[in-house]
């Protein structure tokens, strides 16, 4: 599966157009590499640890001259890794059962579905049809997520560059193979520890060697399936885990590790507005109901107060009326009594 197709699917997903296309990133279909893509087979049993490949790589990639010359083999005593000045390094291992040291060349494995390319948020990495994974410094932001993502710990960074740091890594000599030349390391190798050709041919070659010399090799072509497969294969006489190569990486291509999480993005973007608006509507309605309740309560209280006040008023008026009547009657009575007294006196 090409990165650009993945990109397209992710855009579809990001646009929320269809959940189905986003899920397609995790289909069980297995991408087996571009047909005719090229590959290096590293037969570890044939490597003599001469560092010629390192020298060849340094020369064709015009990398800075090393502190110690490539002919100095004492550097092999310490385990090394790729760095901004070396796309490839040879390491020496002496597994306890083995009497003699074993040499392993390390460089970018050019994954069929590269973790670095999948992780890059500016698409600085390209998986080319020839099998190589190349990097474009002209867009790179320098976030180093590719270095986090790479299971083989290959990409390196120019930590000394203040303003223009680049990611540095093996290109499978992409410019050279376009011209029909061999990768620098393969050309420099004095033994047949490095073979170069079409990936399917290299797998066949590796199988033939295993079948022909079953005592010489472990029955495992490293890179055939690791992380979904790589355009660099290894043959060894001892288990790869004894040579600093991880056998616990699994066969899932790196992009599949994140496609599920990315697929939920359009779901959240599509569903959250409805969910949140729903919660808002419920809380709003609750508030309305409770204000409605309180309004009724207030109205009731006011009505009650009014009735009471009315009653009090009526009572007061009645009382006043009664008092007034009583006063009138009293006055009339007094007047009558007075007039009666007057008449009596007369």
């Amino acid at each position, binding site marked *: 599966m090409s990165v650009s197709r993945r990109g397209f699917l992710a855009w579809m997903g990001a646009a929320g157009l269809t959940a189905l296309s986003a899920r397609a990133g995790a289909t069980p279909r297995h991408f087996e590499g571009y047909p005719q893509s090229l590959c290096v087979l590293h037969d570890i049993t044939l490597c003599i640890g001469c560092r010629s490949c390192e020298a060849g790589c340094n020369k064709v990639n015009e990398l800075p001259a090393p502190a110690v010359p490539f002919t100095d083999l004492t550097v092999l005593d310490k385990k090394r890794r790729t760095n901004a000045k070396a796309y490839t390094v040879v390491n020496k291992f002496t597994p306890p059962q083995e009497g003699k040291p074993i040499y392993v060349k390390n460089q970018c494995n050019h994954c069929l579905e590269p973790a670095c390319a*999948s992780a890059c948020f500016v698409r600085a990495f390209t998986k080319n049809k020839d099998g190589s994974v190349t990097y474009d410094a002209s867009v790179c932001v320098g976030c180093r997520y590719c270095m986090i993502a790479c299971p083989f710990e290959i990409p390196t960074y120019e930590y000394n560059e203040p303003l223009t740091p680049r990611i540095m890594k093996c290109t499978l000599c992409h410019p050279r193979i376009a011209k029909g030349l061999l990768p620098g390391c393969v050309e420099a190798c004095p033994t047949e520890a490095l073979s170069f050709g079409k990936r399917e041919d290299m797998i066949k070659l590796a199988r033939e060697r295993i079948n022909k010399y079953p005592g010489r090799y472990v029955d495992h072509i490293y890179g055939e399936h690791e992380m979904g497969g790589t355009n660099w294969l290894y043959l060894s006489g001892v288990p790869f885990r004894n040579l600093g190569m991880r056998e616990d990486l699994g066969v899932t291509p790196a992009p599949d590790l994140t496609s599920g999480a990315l697929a939920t993005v359009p779901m959240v973007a599509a569903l959250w507005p409805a969910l949140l608006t729903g919660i*808002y509507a419920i809380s709003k309605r609750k508030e309305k109901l409770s204000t409605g309740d309180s309004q009724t309560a207030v109205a009731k209280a006011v009505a009650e107060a009014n009735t009471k006040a009315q009653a009090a008023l009526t009572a007061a008026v009645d009382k006043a009326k009664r008092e007034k009547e009583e006063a009138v009657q009293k006055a009339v009575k007094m007047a009558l009594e007075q007039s009666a007294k007057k008449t009596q006196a007369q």
Partner: protein
Amino acid sequence: MFKLKEVLNRSLLTPFNIIAGIIILIGLIITALRFSGGLAAVTNLSDYNPWGLWIGFDLLCGVALAAGGYVTSAAVYIFGIKKYHSAVRPAILTGFLGYSLVVLALSYDVGRPWRLPYPFVVQAGTTSVLFEVGACVLLYLVVLFIEFTPAASEWLGLKRARNLVVRLTMVLTILGVILSTLHQSSLGALFLIAPSKLHPLWYSQYIPVFFFISSIIAGLSMVIFEGSLTHRYFAEKMDETHLREKEDVVFGFGKAASFVLAAYFAVKVFGITMDDNWHYLSTGYGAWFLVEMLGFVALPCLLYSLGVRERNIKLIKWTAAWTVLGIVVNRFNVCLVAFNWHLPSSERYFPSWMEIGLSLFIVTVGVAAFKFIVTYMPILYEHPGYKTPHP
């Protein structure tokens, strides 16, 4: 309004200003070194350890601890819990400052910071989780800026702009919750691509869920923690409503934090069970994992509930500070401690003093900006000229 004379008349040599001044000076020196000598001149980063303190603390913790903005505005405007209204503005302000500082810190960490917009204007790498993080953080920063503008507009007397934004409150809140859900979880999802490097006790299919749920805990705890600090130093800026609602916020958020911590504990246990990683508990990493789970998840869950039950404000405030520390521990574990656990100790990373110095510098810039803004803008009180509720 900002009165220049008044500021000039006051003595600038306060203890805060002196300490902040020294840290900022050191930060500026580190800045000069970073942009003249590269990352190698100031950091302990290496080809094995491409991400260090500036990602582990400034980015991962910065974003998690700035979650108070979306948590509080969701509580008030979406869940309609009006009594927390006075907590919204300080939380939005912290969120806005937090995210701005994340971007500031990233411009030290990435190689060519001026290219940070490249994924959106030059070439988009949509297969990358980092693309989603970048897009959501960028958009959310804009949302937070808009949400913050009413306070600034009231300060500057821009009545019309202020009222326009206030009318957008609901839309902005919903947008903020969507964007936060996405990028808080995606910060965890960044590590999904490296199962071979992150210790199985921390690596999980559910790591995006872990990061999202713990960001809610971080948001709730930060609002309580920060509220207690602002109350201590800016009490005279708080109006009556703010002071009255303060206790409601502490108890309400403490209760919510207790519940979410319990849920978080449960999902973490499910995570371990799904991958059947229990046997790792007997290792050294397992012991450290238990410290995180029991000391920084289960314990604060219990203390929060106790604090709410006993109406013990002090306990809740200390628990909030402890929980904030727990979030930092978790992010450090994922990004630094449990990451690259397979490497020999000679290849492991420990930050340089200059990395720590720059992180302190970033935090100090944030505290100084917060101090300035709450001193001059209506954050802890209602502006008397505006009767309608503000966001």
